[in-house]
């Protein structure tokens, strides 16, 4: 059944006509052209579809788009502001914390979710924080190191 919904994404409002069964991931990518969020496993296990819902990382493949109404959604497209990279993005580049880049949007958002909650995490806490984001390329070491480096720069 079709429904018109209003979504708040990265501070912008979008009105879309969608089928009730579309997930937030599908609507972001197919209806709104925000293809930074990736579809990996589509069942909440890989973290490629991670977005922030009211500041908390969630698997967007497991949320119906209609359930995202009235919430603040934050995707990878919202990280850079006016062409200026977020410190996490800058750090990922400087430290070489990505190769193919497929897991990176989800990884960055999990990192942001973690650091927003806990500005000075331990290594163990960082590992826990990104445990839901699979990376096939890097072996995670640089990713963890990068997130810790950004945390060190936190006030």
């Amino acid at each position, binding site marked *: 059944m079709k429904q018109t919904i209003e979504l708040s994404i990265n501070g912008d409002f979008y009105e879309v006509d969608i089928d009730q069964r579309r997930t937030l991931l599908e609507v972001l990518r197919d209806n709104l052209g925000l293809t930074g969020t990736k579809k990996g496993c589509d069942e909440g296990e890989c973290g490629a579809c991670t977005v922030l819902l009211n500041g908390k990382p969630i698997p967007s493949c497991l949320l119906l788009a209609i359930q995202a109404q009235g919430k603040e959604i934050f995707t990878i497209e919202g990280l850079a502001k006016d062409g200026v990279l977020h410190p996490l993005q800058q750090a990922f580049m400087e430290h070489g914390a990505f190769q193919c880049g497929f897991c990176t949007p989800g990884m960055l958002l999990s990192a942001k979710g973690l650091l927003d909650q806990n500005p000075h995490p331990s290594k163990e806490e960082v590992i826990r924080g990104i445990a*839901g984001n699979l990376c096939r390329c890097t072996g995670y070491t640089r990713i963890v190191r990068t997130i810790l480096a950004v945390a060190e720069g936190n006030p």
Partner: protein
Amino acid sequence: MNYLRRLPKFDYLAPKTVEEVCSLLSEHKEKAAVMADGTDLLPKMKHREMVPQYLISLENIPDLDRIEYSAKEGLRLGPSVTIDDIQTSQVIRGKFQALAQATDNLGSAQIRNLATLAGNLCNAAPCADTTPPLIALGARLKLISSNGERTVPVEEFFLAPFESALQKDELLGEIEVPNQPSNSSGVSLKQTLRGAMEYPLVGIAVVLHLEGKVCRDVKITGSFCSHCWRREGCRFPCPTPFRATRAEETLRGKELEETLIEEAAQACSREARPIVDHEYTREMIKVFTRRAVIQAWQGSKQP
């Protein structure tokens, strides 16, 4: 089926009251599924393991994410309380440690932010993380339907793998955890093949009530899994969460010390009823029971 499809068609209903949910469930019964979070429901639907015609969402009903605690009533959790809510709740971490600890390594941060305790229980996986501590804490579930309410102890809620005592016209309305004696302490331990995003190979929960060095009461519960649980024809080592009554008897009323705890760990391992008599799992049950009892002992305020 092994591959995933887009979600099947359904009618999405978002009633405003619990009564409405119950009357919708009475009307549609097995054609409807209640959606608290969707982290188990949506993957099942994508695999076509479940194809409900109606999804009844709880999102418009206020107050279902309540965590209430009183010294008289104990802990009351609404059906929309998320795993993250439990993990970060001070009162649960302070007074119901076994439950809080069980949520620490459940799924991933993303899953914990969305998944609900009620959903975890109603999914009735034999190796769910939250069931051993809830059984050890003596928790009860309030099941609501248009015909009234009934309360079922968590211990009796699981009938078979993925089959719970929840009837087709019932809603899990509340999770009640009674107050524990003031000098009790609980521990939940989990052994997994990998660091996260994993059901427990061996999951043990212990709630210990000590007076001095004497164990006044203890509950030891476990849930076990096989890493190939999703494949067809695989049998679960343990179809429903279990209570190690013989291990508990070994400790009850006695003064705690290492050889006694070792005996209890052995008893638990023998008592756990693996269908597949897996030596490694049996050994791990012993190891983790021992660890959990010792940690609960150390965690209690008594010396």
